């Protein structure tokens, strides 16, 4: 009887350890949906890059991109820039949602957005503009 009880305990411990181990594994980011969003963002970046560099747009504290100073862009290019920013933000939102869904926790979306917001800002190149915690623009 005692032996049976011990083996039951061991079984339970083993069952417990499995999700623990999975919990510490990497997040799933290689689904077709995530890869497609990434490719779209990569091609947008070719055009966004010069606007990051001249300070027309910057990284917001909520993991998005926003126009910071439209006057730095010729009037004729502003419409194009606005749609570029909108497309980038659509992809960023979709990316956060898809990562949460791909990992079986749609409710993680806002935490993933928060993590990304910190990482976009921290990885922004020198000279690019980012928002601080209060939402003010600062140049890196």
């Amino acid at each position: 009887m005692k032996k049976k009880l011990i083996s039951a305990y061991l079984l339970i411990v083993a069952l417990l350890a499995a999700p623990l181990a999975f919990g510490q594994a990497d997040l799933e980011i290689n689904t077709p949906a995530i890869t497609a969003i990434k490719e779209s963002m990569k091609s947008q970046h070719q055009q966004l890059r010069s606007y990051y560099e001249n300070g027309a747009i910057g990284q917001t504290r909520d993991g998005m991109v926003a126009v910071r100073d439209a006057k730095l862009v010729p009037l004729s290019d502003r419409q194009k820039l606005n749609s570029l920013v909108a497309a980038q933000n659509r992809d960023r939102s979709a990316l956060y949602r898809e990562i949460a869904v791909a990992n079986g926790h749609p409710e993680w979306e806002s935490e993933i957005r928060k993590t990304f917001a910190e990482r976009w800002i921290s990885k922004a190149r020198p000279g690019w503009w980012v928002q601080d915690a209060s939402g003010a623009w600062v140049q890196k």
Partner: protein
Amino acid sequence: MKKLIWLLPAAVLLPACVTINIYFPEAAAEKAADRIIDDIWQLKQEQQPANGKTAPTGE
């Protein structure tokens, strides 16, 4: 009655198991974010020529 003893550890441990799985994996998320951002902004390709050659001689 004796069979009920089996349920006791399960009743205590299973909710704990569920709780652990629900925690947001902060470190894993950061790592995932870094990999995706490096890829989108192509940061790795940019930095490699500089890091790969000048860093070892500098130290």
